[in-house]
């Protein structure tokens, strides 16, 4: 699938199109790391001790979007996310230990254990917040963009939203205002076809989903969300536009969630989607695809891959050790910090 924009975009720079071997490896490494973190969560979550006791929404299969977007961003740029925030958080540089500690309900978690996996944020990394109520973080991202504009900064805010969030009126209110005010906001819609177990066709009428951006006068494009290069090109263009004061963009990225909506397992057995559909999307795995491309291009070989895996495995093991060993928050502190 290719990038189709509604605007006469200035041609992408060469460097946008081919990021070079090292940068490509970094992209791949970032996707691999997210995949491995989440697979490790999935492995440990059901363990008998049940130490991660909060709902988890894994992004396995959707990593290319977060990674492709984040590579275009600076630390002072912000992202806002939703219930399925792990990949967004990690790709933007969110601290892995603080994330896992949060899943374990520990004081060292990014929320001190108060939020759980749907509230990830990392101020230093530019992950403004994640919110569990569908659509709620969308206007908040627009508000961050408004702040940038008011402050005369050239930072941008990427707003991750699922296909279902387009059904919430607040998306439209937010998009209208962002477009009206030419705010540096990028609406990054991850269409994984489902809201929980309900297919898009049972929630929205047939029409191009990208019209949701166009209707508000935003330059809008539709990309293959499992193609990290395609995502990067679209976001690069949107970021340029936003930094240049030329307003918000809408990017629709097709992808697929592999595991169950909420929890560590697979849920195709429920029957809400077919094994064939699942298999077809697994074929289109963004991680495997990039691995293939890098191998073919001679950038990645088995040794290098093994080295990367080892480094990530070590980091993950250490982060889990940290989270498991970390202290719980003091029960007496539960009522602190209601007011600033």
């Amino acid at each position, binding site marked *: 699938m290719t990038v189709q924009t509604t605007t006469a975009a200035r041609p992408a720079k060469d460097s946008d199109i081919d990021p070079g071997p090292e940068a490509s490896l970094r992209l791949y490494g970032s996707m691999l790391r997210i995949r491995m973190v989440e697979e490790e969560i999935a492995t440990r979550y059901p363990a008998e001790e049940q130490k991660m*006791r*909060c*709902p988890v929404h894994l992004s396995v299969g959707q990593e290319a979007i977060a990674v492709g977007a984040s590579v275009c961003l600076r630390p002072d740029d912000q992202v806002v996310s939703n219930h399925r925030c792990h990949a967004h958080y990690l790709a933007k540089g969110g601290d892995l230990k603080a994330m896992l500690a949060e899943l374990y*309900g*520990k004081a060292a*978690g990014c*929320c*001190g*254990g*108060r*939020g*759980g996996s*749907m*509230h990830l944020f990392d101020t230093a990394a530019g992950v403004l917040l994640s*919110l*569990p*109520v*569908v*659509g709620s973080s969308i206007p908040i991202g627009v508000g961050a963009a408004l702040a940038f504009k008011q402050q005369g900064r050239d930072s941008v805010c990427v707003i991750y939203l699922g296909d*279902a*969030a387009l*059904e*919430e*009126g*607040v998306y439209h209110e937010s998009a209208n205002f962002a477009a009206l005010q030419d705010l540096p906001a990028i609406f990054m819609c991850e269409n994984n076809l489902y*809201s*929980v*177990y*309900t297919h898009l066709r*049972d*929630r*929205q009428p047939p029409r191009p989903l990208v019209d949701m951006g166009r209707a508000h006068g935003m330059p809008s494009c539709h990309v293959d969300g499992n193609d990290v290069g395609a995502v990067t090109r679209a976001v690069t263009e949107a970021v340029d536009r936003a930094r240049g004061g030329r307003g918000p963009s809408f990017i629709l990225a097709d992808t697929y969630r592999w595991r169950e909506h909420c929890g560590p397992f697979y849920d195709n057995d*429920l*029957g*809400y989607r077919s094994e064939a559909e699942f298999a077809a999307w697994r074929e289109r795995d963004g991680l495997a695809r990039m691995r293939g491309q890098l191998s073919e291009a001679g950038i990645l070989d088995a040794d290098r891959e093994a080295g990367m895996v080892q480094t990530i495995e070590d980091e993950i093991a250490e982060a889990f050790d940290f989270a498991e060993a970390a202290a*719980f*928050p*003091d*029960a007496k*502190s*539960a*009522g602190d910090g*209601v007011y600033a």
Partner: protein
Amino acid sequence: MPEPRTINAAEALREAMDLALERWPDVFLMGEGVADPKGIFGTTAGLADKHGRARVVEMPVSENGLTGVAIGAALMGRRPVLVHQRVDFALLSIEQLFNSAAKSHYVTAGRHRVPLVVRMVIGRGWGQGPQHSQSLEAMFAHVPGLKVVMPSTPREFKGLLLGAIEDDNPVLMLEHRWLHYITGDVPEGFYSTPLDGPRLAREGQDVTIVASSYMVFEALRAAEALAGAGCTAEVFDLRILRPLALDPILASVQKTGRLITVDTGWRIGGMGAEIVAEITERAFAHLKAPPRRLGLPDHPTPSSRALAAAYYPGSVDIVDAVEQLLELGQGAAETARQACVAARQGVPMDKPDPAFKGPF
């Protein structure tokens, strides 16, 4: 009334909805997930297959708009049942609930009716966190024109859901997530429970405890434990939070002279405030001690189980409150507290209490 059987509240709800769809052609069900394989914690499982997608309507993720849609359909004579998997999501639809649903009958001088039921689930446990666990009954119970119901036993889940569907007013039914699991006697076939006031759940002489929803079981456990300590508590299941029928509670307090309220929501500004204020005004001369209110402390729900454990009031706290209102014999309160703790069988506080099984 037909023979009782033991089923859980989720099954009781499913059965009630099935009967409603069979009995009344105007009834339909809508909500995010009503027709999906998990069917709102099992409470709507199989209904789409049986009654068809026209009667069991899968909903876009548009809580405000679809509440308005339900109201519009109700105004035209349909009887929609709308479900939210969490009370918190219904916060998007407050304008429609407070303005359109609550006021249509009044503002048209009785010409319009909004026979709408909105089921909302109160989350608890497993690290739900601050935005998936709110219990906002007091907020809804503030608004004239709405009816607010909180069932406790499986029998009442079924009867009150059918009663709510029969009612010609907008009825909000708040269901505690943990109560879906409790089991109890539920008659087969159709019966409906009118939305007409509190239910006396246990008789007693020494103190009146008014509890709602899941807290009814905590209160009953405390009462049981206190009975061993020679104190008999009268326990009311508040059930219908609006319109509030306080006469039976008033009569009880006139007898016991002592009142404790136990909310599933925040204590400040909770249902207990209204009950205590009203009963104090009407039974002042009978009060032997100041009424006490239990409810959630004044902060959002923390996710971590290390923090959430103490967040929820339970039977031990109720025993504590009773101890403050009347003289219990030497060591009696402590014994009662121990009985309460023992009854939990060591299950972590972020998991439903396995002891809350029927028959009730």
